[in-house]
């Protein structure tokens, strides 16, 4: 019985990931379109709403050629190595106090560990393609990831110190109170520098546009995904959008009170069980919108500029902010 439930939960996660992919691609096209003062997809369905469904069908029915020079085994398993961790990253996300695939005590650490495996898959894809643009794309993705994973973790650390837990539901619950009686005690207010650091690192980790040097259409064709076609390309692409969702969900959980609704008593929120997941999804999509807004506004950064940003600015700033927070938290503990 338990096994059946577990399997259903994993399936639910997979369903959410696939649905997210379809919705996010449509959203990206529309948001970018309107930011560029054009309409985006308009032909298929009202306002082009089934455009991505048509695209998915196209991807599924496309021919899937394997280039002659590729390193066959690695070429075939690379999309799986990218896709599986992206799916596993959904496991610990707290959609509400009850809605989650599993409730892990080390949920945050789990999500970060799983996400850290994705660049390896990208590097495998880039190397196996035996194409210099693919290899460049893969190498850039990994260089980026190494440079920004530490700032990402260190930007999440102050929040963990404030909440005193790595369980994501506990982190959400720690934000339930109010400051001065009316400001929702969400962590983005005291942790504003951490939020900015986290947002920049998350953009780099998810290869979003100001930092999308690993794909860089105008210089690298499609980066690590150049030699892939059909659903193998689809998996690489889907994992990218899914990572965007997971990072945004993490930002919501860490800084914007997760599934909490301000000014509504906690008991009432828990009684109307469905409100929390809906609020969580709305907040997450709002963060995704901000990321797409950045994507539509800023030009691509040069790779060496990004590397020096990661190592020379993000890293020292995040270390100092984590130390300041630790000091203040300890002082408050001693003072009490």
């Amino acid at each position, binding site marked *: 019985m338990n096994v059946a439930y577990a399997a259903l939960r994993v399936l639910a996660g997979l369903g959410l990931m696939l649905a997210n992919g379809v919705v996010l691609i449509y959203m990206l096209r529309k948001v970018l379109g309107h930011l560029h003062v054009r309409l985006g997809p308009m032909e298929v369905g009202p306002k082009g709403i089934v455009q991505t469904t048509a695209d998915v069908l196209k991807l599924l029915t496309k021919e899937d050629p394997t280039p002659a020079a590729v*390193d066959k085994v*690695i070429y075939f398993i690379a999309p799986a190595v990218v896709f599986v961790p992206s799916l596993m990253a959904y496991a610990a996300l707290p959609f509400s106090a009850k809605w989650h695939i599993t409730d*892990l*005590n*080390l949920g945050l*650490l*789990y999500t*970060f*560990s*799983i996400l*850290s*495996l994705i*660049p*390896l898959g990208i*590097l*495998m894809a880039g*190397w196996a393609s*035996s194409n210099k643009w693919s*290899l460049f794309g893969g*190498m850039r993705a*990994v*260089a980026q*990831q*190494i440079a920004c*994973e530490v700032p990402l973790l260190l930007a999440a650390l102050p929040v963990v110190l404030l909440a005193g837990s*790595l369980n994501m539901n506990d982190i959400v619950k720690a934000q339930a109170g109010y400051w001065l009686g009316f400001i929702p005690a969400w962590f983005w207010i005291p942790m504003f520098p951490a939020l900015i650091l986290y947002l920049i690192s998350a953009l780099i980790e998810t290869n979003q546009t100001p930092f999308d040097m690993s794909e860089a259409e105008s210089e690298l064709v499609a980066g690590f995904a150049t030699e892939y076609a059909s659903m193998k390309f689809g998996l690489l692409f889907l994992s990218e959008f899914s990572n965007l969702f997971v990072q945004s969900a993490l930002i919501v959980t860490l800084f914007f009170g997760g599934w909490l609704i301000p000014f509504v008593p906690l008991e009432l929120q828990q009684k109307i069980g469905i409100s929390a997941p809906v609020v969580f999804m709305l907040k997450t999509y709002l963060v995704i919108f901000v990321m797409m807004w950045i994507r539509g506004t800023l030009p691509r950064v040069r790779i060496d500029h990004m590397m020096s940003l990661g190592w020379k600015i993000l890293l020292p700033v995040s270390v100092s902010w984590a130390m300041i927070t630790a000091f203040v938290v300890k002082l408050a503990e001693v003072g009490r």
Partner: protein
Amino acid sequence: MPNTVDGIAFAILAISMVGGALGMVSSRNIVHAALWLLEVSVAAAGLYYLLDADFIALVQLLVYAGAVVVLTVFTVMITLRRREDAVRPVDFSWPALLLALALGGILLAAAANFPKKTISMPDAMPSIVRFGELLFTARGYALAFEIASVLLTVALLAAVWWSREVED
């Protein structure tokens, strides 16, 4: 029932770990060898998880699979001049074989003579808070931890000094 499940999981992990290690040493392609190493470290994380050591398992995944192997593959790729250089022929030498056999013999003898000790496992793994207290307080392993971090800093400095630009 749980024992059988654990047994099956252990068998899968153990076989993939040993298989990965064999694949790594027998692979002629250095990039493939590095990727076999990835399999070994992921399987090791699985074994830790099977022992209920969640924290160690996750850190193994984050540090070894996510960082050490990534760096290894990255370094291998950056130092390869051409793609074909990744495949190396077998470079056989007698002294190397003797050295390997000697090391294997010593390890085997050490394992065979290892004092047998039964340790009772705690019912529940101590929480991360307890873990932190043990690792970072003077009563626990703070000194060892600090020594390890000094060692790493020295290694880092050495790496920076070594890779500096040499002026002619």
